[in-house]
C-alpha cells in the first residue's frame, strides 16, 4: 500500500500561525496509530485565513482542512480525515473551492500545488517549457514576443518589459546583468515572497529567459533581509538548478551561459527603487541615482542591466510557453495579462487573488475579501502600498488596471490591496505616510529628505487645530514640491496617500469637505 500524501505549507505566513507544529503533531499522532503518511511541505495556496491549510491527496483531488491548530490534530485523526475526508474544518476539494476555482492563475499556477524544490514536480506542471521554447528562438524573437504579450513591470512603474529587454539586447557591452527586484517592501504585498517560497524555479526560469534574450551571463536576486525563508529557498533552488544543468556554463546543454546569485538587503525600503538597488548591489549606501542614464544602458557596475520585479520575470516562462496571443487574451486596454492581487490588512478572507486586469475593486471586495476581520464596515482601502492612494466607498467601482487607477488619482503599484475598518483615523494614516518617508528616505534629494519631516509637522498642526487654513495650504504646497521635485517615486508618490486622505476623509482632519477639496 502506498502512503497517503499530506500537504502542509512551509510558507512563512503559514508557519507564523503554527504550520510546523501542526506538521510535527500530525506525524506524531499518525505514527502512534501506525498510519502510513507522507508529509509534503508545499507553498501556500494563498488563502491565508485558512492557514495552516492541511491537504490530503485522494483519487478525486486534494481535500483541504483549515485553519488547523495543534489541538485539532487528534480529532482530525480520530475522525479518520485521511480516508473519510470529513471534519468540521474540511473545505472539500481545494481546487473546487469557490475562492480559488475562478482565479486565473498563470504566474501562481504552481504555488501551493507543488513541492517547491522538487524538479520532477516542477516539470510535471509545465516547468521549463518556456525556457526550452526560448532556446529555440533568437534573442530578438524573444524580446519581440515579450513586447507583443503586453507584459508590463509588476513592481509598480508598469514599463513594458519587452522594450526594456530590447534596449539591453541592442546595447553592446562585454558584460550584461539581469537583476530580480525582490525587495518587496510595500506593506500589504507578499506575492514575491510567496512565489519565491512556493515556486522558486519559476523565477530562475524567467531570469534565464531574460538572460538569453539580452545576452547576460550573470544574474542577481536582491531579496530583503526581512524574508529569511525566501532567501533560503532561492539559494537552495539555485544550487539544485546548477546541479541539473539548468544554470551554469551551458544552460540545458545549450550554448548559453548563465548563473545566479542571491544578494541579501539590509533593511532599507528605498532599495526597492531600481537605481538605489543597483547602488546596494554594488555594496554602497542605497542612494537613488538620477536618470538618465537608464539602467538598461548603464546599470550595475556601469553595464547594461535588466531590472525587473519578481512577478514580471516569473511571467516570462508562461508567455514563452503559451505565446503572446494567449497572454494578452487576459486583461484590458494597455493592462494585459494577469495581476497577482494581494488582499491584506483588516480582511476576512485575505490572500492571493490572481486575475486578469480589469476587475473592479468592488468585485474583488465582494467576491473575495468578504468584509473585514473585525466584522466592522470598511472605511478605506489603500491600493498599491505605502505610496498608493486611499479609496473611500464611493470609489470602489474603480477598475483595477494601470490607467484606470491613475485616472482616479491612485496607482496599482505592486498590487497590494489593504482594507481598513471604520476605526481608522485617516489623519493619522496621512501623517504616517510622511513619517514613513522621513524614516526611509535615502536623503539624496531635498523635497523627500526635508519635505517628509516638514510634512509630519504640518499635518500635526492641522490635526491640532493650529492655523488650519494656512497650514493646509502649506501642506498642499509641500505635496506639490515633493511630487514635482523628488528624484524617485519615494518622495514623488508620498503625497498620494496624503492627498487622497485629505480629499476623501476631510472629516478626520477636522476640515470641511469643501475646504479640503479646493486644495486637492
Amino acid at each position, binding site marked *: 500500500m502506498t502512503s497517503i500524501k499530506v500537504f502542509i505549507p512551509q510558507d512563512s505566513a503559514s508557519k507564523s500561525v503554527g504550520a510546523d507544529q501542526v506538521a510535527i503533531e500530525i506525524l506524531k499522532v499518525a505514527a502512534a496509530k501506525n498510519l502510513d503518511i507522507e508529509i509534503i511541505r508545499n507553498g501556500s495556496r494563498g488563502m491565508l485565513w485558512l492557514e495552516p491549510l492541511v491537504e490530503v491527496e485522494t483519487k478525486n483531488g486534494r481535500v483541504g482542512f483549515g485553519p488547523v491548530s495543534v489541538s485539532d490534530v487528534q480529532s482530525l485523526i480520530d475522525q479518520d480525515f485521511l480516508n473519510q475526508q470529513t471534519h468540521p474544518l474540511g473545505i472539500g476539494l481545494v481546487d473546487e473551492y469557490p475562492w480559488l476555482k475562478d482565479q486565473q492563475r498563470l504566474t501562481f499556477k504552481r504555488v501551493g500545488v507543488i513541492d517547491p524544490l522538487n524538479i520532477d514536480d516542477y516539470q510535471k506542471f509545465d516547468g521549463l517549457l518556456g525556457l526550452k521554447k526560448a532556446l529555440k528562438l533568437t534573442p530578438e524573437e524573444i524580446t519581440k514576443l515579450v513586447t507583443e504579450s503586453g507584459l508590463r513591470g509588476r513592481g509598480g512603474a508598469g514599463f513594458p518589459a519587452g522594450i526594456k529587454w530590447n534596449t539591453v539586447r541592442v546595447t553592446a557591452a562585454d558584460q550584461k546583468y539581469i537583476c530580480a527586484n525582490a525587495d518587496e517592501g510595500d506593506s500589504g504585498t507578499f506575492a514575491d515572497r510567496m512565489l519565491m517560497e512556493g515556486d522558486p524555479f519559476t523565477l530562475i526560469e524567467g531570469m534565464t529567459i531574460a538572460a538569453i534574450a539580452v545576452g547576460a551571463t550573470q544574474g542577481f536576486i536582491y531579496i530583503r533581509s*526581512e524574508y529569511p525563508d525566501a532567501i533560503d529557498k532561492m539559494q537552495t533552488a539555485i544550487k539544485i538548478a546548477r546541479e541539473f544543468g539548468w544554470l551554469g556554463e551551458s544552460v540545458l546543454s545549450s550554448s548559453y551561459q548563465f548563473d545566479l546569485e542571491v544578494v541579501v538587503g*539590509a533593511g*532599507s525600503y528605498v532599495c526597492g527603487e531600481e537605481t538605489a538597488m543597483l547602488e546596494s548591489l554594488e555594496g*554602497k549606501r542605497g542612494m537613488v541615482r538620477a536618470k538618465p542614464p537608464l539602467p538598461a544602458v548603464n546599470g550595475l557596475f556601469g553595464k547594461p542591466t535588466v531590472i525587473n520585479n519578481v512577478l514580471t520575470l516569473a511571467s516570462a516562462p508562461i508567455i514563452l510557453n503559451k505565446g503572446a496571443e494567449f497572454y494578452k487574451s487576459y486583461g484590458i486596454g494597455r493592462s494585459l495579462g494577469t495581476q497577482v492581487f494581494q488582499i491584506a*490588512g483588516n480582511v476576512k478572507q485575505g490572500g492571493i487573488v490572481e486575475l486578469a486586469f480589469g476587475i473592479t475593486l468592488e468585485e474583488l471586495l465582494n467576491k473575495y475579501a468578504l468584509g473585514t476581520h473585525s466584522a466592522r464596515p470598511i472605511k478605506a482601502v489603500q491600493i498599491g502600498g505605502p505610496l498608493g492612494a486611499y479609496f473611500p466607498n464611493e470609489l470602489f467601482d474603480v477598475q483595477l488596471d494601470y490607467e484606470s487607477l491613475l485616472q482616479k488619482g491612485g496607482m496599482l503599484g505592486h498590487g497590494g490591496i*489593504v482594507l481598513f475598518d471604520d476605526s481608522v483615523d485617516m489623519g493619522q494614516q496621512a501623517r*504616517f505616510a510622511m513619517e514613513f518617508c522621513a524614516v526611509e528616505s535615502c536623503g539624496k534629494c531635498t523635497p523627500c529628505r526635508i519635505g517628509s519631516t516638514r510634512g509630519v509637522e504640518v499635518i500635526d498642526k492641522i490635526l491640532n487645530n493650529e492655523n488650519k487654513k494656512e497650514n493646509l495650504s502649506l501642506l498642499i504646497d509641500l505635496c506639490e514640491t515633493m511630487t514635482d521635485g523628488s528624484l524617485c517615486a519615494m518622495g514623488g508618490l508620498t503625497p498620494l496617500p496624503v492627498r487622497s486622505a485629505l480629499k476623501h476623509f476631510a472629516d478626520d482632519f477636522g476640515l470641511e469637505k469643501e475646504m479640503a477639496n479646493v486644495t486637492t
Partner: protein
Amino acid sequence: MNQVATGFRPWSTQVAMAILESKASTLILPNLQTIQKEFGFIPHEAIELVSKVCNVSRADVHGVVSYYTDLRETPAAKVCVKLCVAEACQANGVREFSVAAEQVLGIKLDQHNPGGVELEAVYCLGNCVLGPTALINDTLYGRLTTEQLKAIVETKLENK
C-alpha cells in the same frame, strides 16, 4: 544583567581578516554583513578592516554602516523583537498593540535596552493578512497577542 545575543564569536581582528579574505569580496556591504553574521555586530575595529579590504576610506565604510538599519555597531540583545508597524498591520491594530507590547515587555519601542530584550519597529514582514506580526530572533509569528508575545520572549530569555 546585560544579556546579549549568543552564538557569535568574540571579536578578533585576525579571525575577521581571515574570514574576509576567504570571502574575497571588495564590496563594502557584503563584507559588513559577513562581519555581523560572525560577530553579531560591527565593532569599531571592523570598519578599518573593511576599509582596507575594499580599498576605500573609513568614512565610506561608516557611511554604509549608518545607512542600513540592519547593521549595528553594538551587540544585539538576547531576544530581538522586530514588530511590523506598517499600514497592513496598522489596519489590524498594531498601533494599540505596540503600546501594549511596550507595557508587557517593560521596554520602549526602538530604544536601547540592556535587559536582554529589544523591541524594534520594522516596516513590513510580508505577513500582511495575519497581523499583528513580528520576527522574534528570526522566527515569524502572526496573529500575535500580547500574552503570546510575553510567553515567547520569556521562553527565549530562559534558553541558553
